[in-house]
């Protein structure tokens, strides 16, 4: 699946055979949910189950002990309690299994006894020579392999080009449920790092950097396990594909360093800011941006730059959203003369057309499709424009017109993202969003969102060297 040499994490993301240790026939228990998740995602490899009573679970005959398993299994998912994990890791290593996902919580995140257990687990991992995701994680997802180790009920996870690295089980749990139910995009890989006792964000970032299934990488981190290694890898990967990070918490300089002015300044998060900027990581500040930006990046490529045009049915939007563009680092350039001529030809003579494009008068003269369609084509053809936002105005009187024109227009200009937002009657907005997003046009329910997203994409573009091609179709 990957180009070039095998990566140490291949056994996690493209396993040929998997065993669930602690599989359960009781609905709702982690050892049962994980089996159901694997089956629901259509995993094509061999699935083995270990359960001391050797029950039949979800139609698969479990074995009572690890010794009864065949040789050569790629990956184990362990849903046993924390206290049993060190011994289990040793036993799995002895059976030649090199990739292990540990779900249990009750380690260093809880108390000193848990910390001692985690230290014991660390020794077991080193001695057994295995790689471990977790503990204290919901696991991971790899849609190209039709596989997940998550014990959070997921159902089938749609395949896409976005990958997540998260210091929370959220992105193989509740946030993934949000994505699969509310978002038009699918994921390629998603990893909940848990306590990072072995595999950390640097390992996964390194893997995703060369992963042909992953076109953009989103991280949620509260700490960085090997900061300098992370920066080294991020520096490489961020030149190839967007690396977008939401980081909680700030770094503090030591007490000795704080004796100097430089050290006092460093205590203010500036070091983390600088280090991540240096490594080409694009920072976001809002959790919802982890979805909003991914929605765009799965559907459209990066724009060439930060120059936007937008079509607005209201003068107030042209004013307020131009202000927003300035605030978030987007330019609203003057349009080329021939673009202005095309726009003016659509408009009543008393309106002087410019960027942003006030579309209201044109709609009155020519109807929805022609006014929006011709204006959108005009601004997308403009060489001073890198991306466009369309603000649709839908009411019961307008109904939901055919948006074929919008989809066709976006496809005629694949290098320039077209993002859509709405003002008007909510149920029509929702209907238009659903229709457009299944056809590859990302939509946003709040008028500011597409601009904030384009600002992030423009920052990614300043770093990524090769243009990312838009998805086919």
């Amino acid at each position, binding site marked *: 699946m990957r180009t070039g040499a095998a990566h140490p994490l291949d056994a996690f993301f493209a396993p040929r055979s998997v065993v669930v240790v602690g599989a359960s026939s009781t609905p709702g228990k982690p050892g049962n949910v994980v089996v159901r998740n694997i089956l629901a995602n259509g995993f094509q490899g061999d699935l083995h189950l270990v359960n001391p009573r050797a029950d039949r679970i979800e139609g698969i005959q479990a074995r009572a002990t690890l010794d009864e398993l065949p040789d050569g299994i790629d990956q184990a998912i362990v849903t046993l309690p924390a206290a049993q994990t060190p011994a289990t890791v040793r036993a799995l290593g002895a059976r030649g299994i090199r990739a292990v996902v540990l779900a249990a919580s009750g380690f260093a995140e809880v108390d000193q006894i848990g910390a001692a257990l985690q230290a014991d687990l660390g020794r077991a991992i080193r001695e057994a020579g295995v790689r471990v995701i977790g503990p204290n994680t919901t696991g991971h997802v790899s849609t190209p392999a039709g596989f997940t180790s998550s014990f959070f009920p997921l159902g089938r996870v749609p395949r896409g080009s976005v990958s997540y690295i998260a210091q929370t089980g959220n992105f193989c749990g509740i946030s993934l449920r949000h994505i699969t139910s509310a978002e038009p995009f699918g994921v390629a890989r998603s990893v909940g790092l848990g306590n990072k006792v072995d595999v950390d964000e640097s390992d996964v970032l390194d893997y995703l950097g060369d992963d042909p299934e992953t076109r953009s990488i989103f991280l949620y981190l509260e700490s960085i396990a090997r900061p300098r290694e992370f920066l080294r890898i991020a520096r490489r990967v961020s030149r190839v594909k967007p690396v977008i990070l939401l980081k909680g918490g700030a770094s503090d300089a030591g007490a000795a360093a704080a004796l100097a*002015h*430089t050290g006092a300044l*460093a205590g203010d998060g500036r070091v983390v800011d600088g280090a991540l900027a240096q490594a080409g990581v694009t920072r976001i500040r809002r959790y919802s941006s982890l979805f909003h930006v991914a929605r765009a990046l799965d559907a459209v490529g990066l724009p060439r730059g930060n120059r936007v045009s937008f079509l607005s049915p209201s003068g107030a939007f042209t004013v307020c959203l131009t202000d927003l563009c300035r605030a978030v680092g987007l330019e609203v350039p003057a349009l080329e003369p021939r673009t202005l001529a095309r726009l003016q030809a659509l408009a009543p003579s008393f309106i002087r057309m410019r960027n942003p494009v006030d579309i209201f008068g044109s709609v009155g003269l020519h109807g929805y499709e022609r006014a929006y369609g011709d204006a959108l084509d005009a601004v997308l053809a403009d060489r001073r424009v890198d991306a466009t936002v369309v603000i649709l105005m839908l009411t019961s009187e307008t109904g939901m017109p055919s948006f074929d024109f919008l989809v066709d227009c976006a496809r005629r200009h694949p290098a320039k993202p077209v993002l859509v937002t709405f003002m008007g009657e909510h149920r029509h907005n929702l209907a238009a969003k659903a229709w457009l997003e299944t056809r590859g046009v990302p939509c946003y329910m709040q008028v500011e969102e597409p601009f904030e997203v384009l600002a992030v994409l423009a920052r990614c573009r300043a770093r990524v060297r090769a243009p990312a091609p838009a998805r086919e179709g």
Partner: protein
Amino acid sequence: MRRATAGIERLIRAARRRGERFLSEHDSKRVLAAYGVPVTREVLVRTSAEAAAAARRIRYPVALKASLPGEAHKTERGLVALGLGGERALRAALGTLRARAGPVFRGEFLVQEMVRGSRELALGMVRDPQFGPCVMVGLGGIFAEILQDAVFRVAPLSRGDAREMLGALRGRRILEPVRGLPAVDRGALGRSLVAVGRIGLDHPDIAAIDVNPLIVRGATPVAVDALVVLSPAPAA
């Protein structure tokens, strides 16, 4: 650089023997100069006669500073006399400073060239617990603490990193030609940033470095005051 490194290690050991957590201004600048950061011409003296001889060589006007280890706010304590135009003023200032210096004073003064320039920058290094040695550049002088306009990057810095840091300053236009002043030599400034990061990487005993102000003389930034902070002494 090996000889420079050995010299710096000697300065650090000497400070440690005296139980000090800072290098003096003069020693701090020797560290910087060893890595190619431009610093003021200056001479360490004890007596009025030595001071007068030094000032004649440096040429008036000169600055006189009481030399104390780790005194970060010499100006506020009145331990600095600037723009001394001749020997009479120099001798008078020496007497005043000696009287103010207090009990830790070991009787040493710095006679220093006056660096003329209206643009003041700051640069520094800090050892971050996560990222290791990091380099700072910002606006300096009295604006350093008020505007807090500073940018950090992790050492080692590439030339590109140094260039990009300067572009990330809110006040970056101060580096451009302004009010008849030439553009700041960004190449020279960038080399100083790279050098400060290199000091941090080469000398784990150095916890932080402050260079403030870094006065731009013509187009070239010169370290006018400097402070090297040592990390806590390793347990014996």
